[in-house]
């Protein structure tokens, strides 16, 4: 068997395996075994479910660019170059998602810190004030003795 024929056979077998995985994933999504209902959900300050637009944008951009890249790679038969503009676009999308998530988690952390600190019991305060006043007559006596 020629090396090229062997390489073609390996490529065909690998392609069948990968496409099989893809078909299984698609079938599981269609039958509901893979649940996509929370694919866009981020919990908000109240803990309820809320769709995130930055997640949707990240999903759309990744999906489209990866799909285009895959198709062009298969057509050309080799890995194609990715221009800097596409990387910047993915960076904008991913960065926006990360910052949005950070802002959301920052809003969650602020709420416990807003609780007021407990006040000290009022009974302790007058006793603390009395001590310096009681000490003053003793200090005056000592000063008068020293002056004599």
């Amino acid at each position, binding site marked *: 068997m020629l090396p090229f024929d062997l390489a073609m056979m390996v490529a065909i077998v690998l392609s069948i395996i990968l*496409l099989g995985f893809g078909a299984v994933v698609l079938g599981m999504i269609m039958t509901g075994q893979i649940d996509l209902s929370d694919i866009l959900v981020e919990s908000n300050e109240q803990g*309820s479910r809320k769709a995130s637009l930055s997640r949707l944008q990240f999903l*759309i951009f990744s999906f489209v660019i990866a799909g285009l890249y895959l198709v062009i790679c298969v057509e050309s*038969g080799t890995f194609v170059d990715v221009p800097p503009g596409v990387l910047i676009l993915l960076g*904008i999308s991913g960065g926006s998602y990360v910052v949005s998530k950070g802002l959301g988690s920052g809003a969650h952390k602020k709420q416990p810190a*807003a609780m007021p600190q407990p006040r000290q019991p009022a009974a302790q305060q007058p006793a603390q004030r009395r001590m310096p006043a009681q000490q003053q007559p003793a200090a005056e006596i000592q000063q008068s003795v020293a002056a004599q």
Partner: protein
Amino acid sequence: MNAGPIPDLLTFILLTWLIGLAAVIVYEFVRGRIWFRGLFTTDVDGDGIADEFHPERVQLLIMSLCGIVGYAMMTMEAASASNATLTVLPDIPEELLMILGASNTFYLSGKYGRMLQRG
């Protein structure tokens, strides 16, 4: 060395799979099985009723969809117009990058401003 019809077959199968996946996601979206409530609004007091509407989110979605659809169409046109197969993805115009960057900045600024307003 000629790979025969295998690359064309793979391209066809991959495109079918990608379109099928996109169709399933859009179908789940239309049926309402994918949760998209709160995409443009916020329920501040947690009573289940939207209290705030965010226009910056609407503009982000519109700009993002227009931008990515335009880029996909540009890539498909470049692939069909050239006699030889593409060896590099088409570069994104700088104007489009600036528009999308400004759109995302506007969205994040609005989100940050509302977070400060709520304390």
